């Protein structure tokens, strides 16, 4: 009887119930959207700046992070790689060389970041070949190089042209080379796009006279959220007097700080949104309680215990708000997935300001069920607090006064 009464009661005033349902649904949609876009943007920022360069975990010579010089590079040995690969969660270890060089074509010269990579592994993890806008991606054994689109435009260099490179190799040796451009890549980070030169690892070793060397080992992991734990495990296994393993958060504290700062602003916005939702839910519950006090009194007069009426009132609150939560989730889920696959591309001044931070001006959503659960739990908490009003009203109900209404 309780369930039947509660269900029929919520449809007593259809318009009000529909408005309440809509407000809870809208709240879920807005809250989940806001959080998904926020987390999606952070994930994109991390991917842009971390994924392209350091990886989520990076092992290097102990002094390298303080002074990023080839002289602080490491000699890559199978035993070192095997030691890291045996750590739970590590899926691959890729040696990488990074160095700065002066690059030139025709009358144009520019400082560039030279990245010597294992093309196959890099492509597998960062999908660089998908970002090629002209030509093709480099192969492990060849003399070709790939340039960032911005750099190629600055140098006015095309596929098949030769890029002249000049820099400092290992232990102060001169590094000089001329390499054909086989591809142009459009990197998500505009900053990297203007300065990156990709070359096969072995070619970079030859160019920089650094046989078997690398400036760092990119550690690929199965779950980014386990980066801290895996990093600790690596540091426990390697000789930390020689090597140091760092997470992306340790390597990019300014990015962490920026995300944290932005999150705080987001929390205030979500807080305001929840306040509005809370008042909406409370308003409905208040009206449903006040207009039925006489009915509650009558039911008590007939012999219904107050506890049963409280249960009915809790059912009513749960029905309306659970329906709202379900509808909100059903609306939001496909949209969040859609904007994850097809992110919103920002244009105009906003895009320019995002690019200033070296980020790609896109706003993807993050499909994370934890975000849905968080919002559902918060709305349920609000409902729980609002449901206290009918409970208190029923407990304190003065029978005669309510019956006289």
């Amino acid at each position, binding site marked *: 009887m309780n369930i039947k009464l509660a269900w*029929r009661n919520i449809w007593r005033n259809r318009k009000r119930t529909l408005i309440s349902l809509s407000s809870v649904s809208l709240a879920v949609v807005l809250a989940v959207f806001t959080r998904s876009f926020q987390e999606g943007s952070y994930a994109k920022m991390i991917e842009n700046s971390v994924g392209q360069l350091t990886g989520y975990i990076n092992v290097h010579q102990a002094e390298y992070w303080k002074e990023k010089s080839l002289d602080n590079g490491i000699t890559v040995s199978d035993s070192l790689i095997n030691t890291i690969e045996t750590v739970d969660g590590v899926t691959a270890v890729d040696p990488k060389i990074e160095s700065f060089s002066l690059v030139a074509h025709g009358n144009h010269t520019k400082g560039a970041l030279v990245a010597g990579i294992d093309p196959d592994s890099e492509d597998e993890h960062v999908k660089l070949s998908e970002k090629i806008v002209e030509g093709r991606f480099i192969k492990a054994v060849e003399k070709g190089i790939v340039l960032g689109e911005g750099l190629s435009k600055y140098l006015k260099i095309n596929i098949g042209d030769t890029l002249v490179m000049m820099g400092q190799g290992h232990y102060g040796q001169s590094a000089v080379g001329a390499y054909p451009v086989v591809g142009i890549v459009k990197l998500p980070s505009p900053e990297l796009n203007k300065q990156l030169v990709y070359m096969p690892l072995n070619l970079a070793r030859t160019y920089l006279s650094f046989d078997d060397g690398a400036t760092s080992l990119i550690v690929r992991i199965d779950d980014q959220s386990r980066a801290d734990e895996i990093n600790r495990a690596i540091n426990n296994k390697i000789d930390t007097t020689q090597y140091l393993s760092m997470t992306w958060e340790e390597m990019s504290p300014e990015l962490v700080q920026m995300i944290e700062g932005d999150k705080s602003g987001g929390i205030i916005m979500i807080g305001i949104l929840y306040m509005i939702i809370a008042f909406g839910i409370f308003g409905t519950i208040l009206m449903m309680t006040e207009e039925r006090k006489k009915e509650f009194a009558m039911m008590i007069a007939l012999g219904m215990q107050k506890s049963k009426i409280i249960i009915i009132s809790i059912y009513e609150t749960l029905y309306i708000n659970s329906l709202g939560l379900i509808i909100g989730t059903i609306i939001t889920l496909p949209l969040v997935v859609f904007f994850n696959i097809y992110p919103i591309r920002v244009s105009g001044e906003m895009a320019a300001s995002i690019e200033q931070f070296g980020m790609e001006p896109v706003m993807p959503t993050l499909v994370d069920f934890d975000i849905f659960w968080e919002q559902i739990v918060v709305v349920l908490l609000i409902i729980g607090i609002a449901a206290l009003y009918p409970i208190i009203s029923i407990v304190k109900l003065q029978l005669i006064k309510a019956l006289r209404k």
Partner: protein
Amino acid sequence: MKPVIEIKDVYKIYKETEVEVKAVNGVNLSIKSSEFTAIVGPSGSGKTTLLNMIGGLDSPSSGSIIIDGTDISQLSSKAMIDFRLHNIGFVFQAYNLIPVLTAKENAEFIMQLQHYSKADRDQRIHELFKAIGIEGKENIRPNRLSGGQQQRVAVARALASKPKFILADEPTANLDSHSTSDLLDIMRQLNEEEQVTFIFSTHDQRVIDRAKRIITLEDGKIISDIEK
């Protein structure tokens, strides 16, 4: 015959301002089973207050109300609700049916609270609806019934679980003369045939004319108690 209700030296005093108001002022009364009693008196005479106290909806400031051997003024709020459920039927002036339930569901409301089986409920409600002339209205919601029909459903609800007595506060106040007459016929018939005890508070002369006992209150005191 042993009285079903015994009221001993009952007072109800309100102290809303500096002045004390004695709504019920030292009432002593006993009502036996199968009575058809009307409590009458002008507005403010204390008849509704007295009825509320008999029904355990309000508690006396002093004195005791004993129903079938139980002093209800000593019961806790929870125990009082349970006592009402199993012993007292109510018919209110404004019918007070639950709008989201059908006529049958309203009538069997108390039986459901008492955990009667569906078969027992169906049988009892069928008998009652037939007896009070609203057969065929079982699945209709209150807002689609006339005032007279709604009050008959309220009577069926009060009678359904066979309480010890029925308290009816101005049951005809919102009814036209035809509906009033029909309702009173039904109540009188139930009183005579099924020995249902009815206690009314009323202004309505038609109710007073049909009552077997008339108790008149004035300023909270019984000024006359006439058995016809």
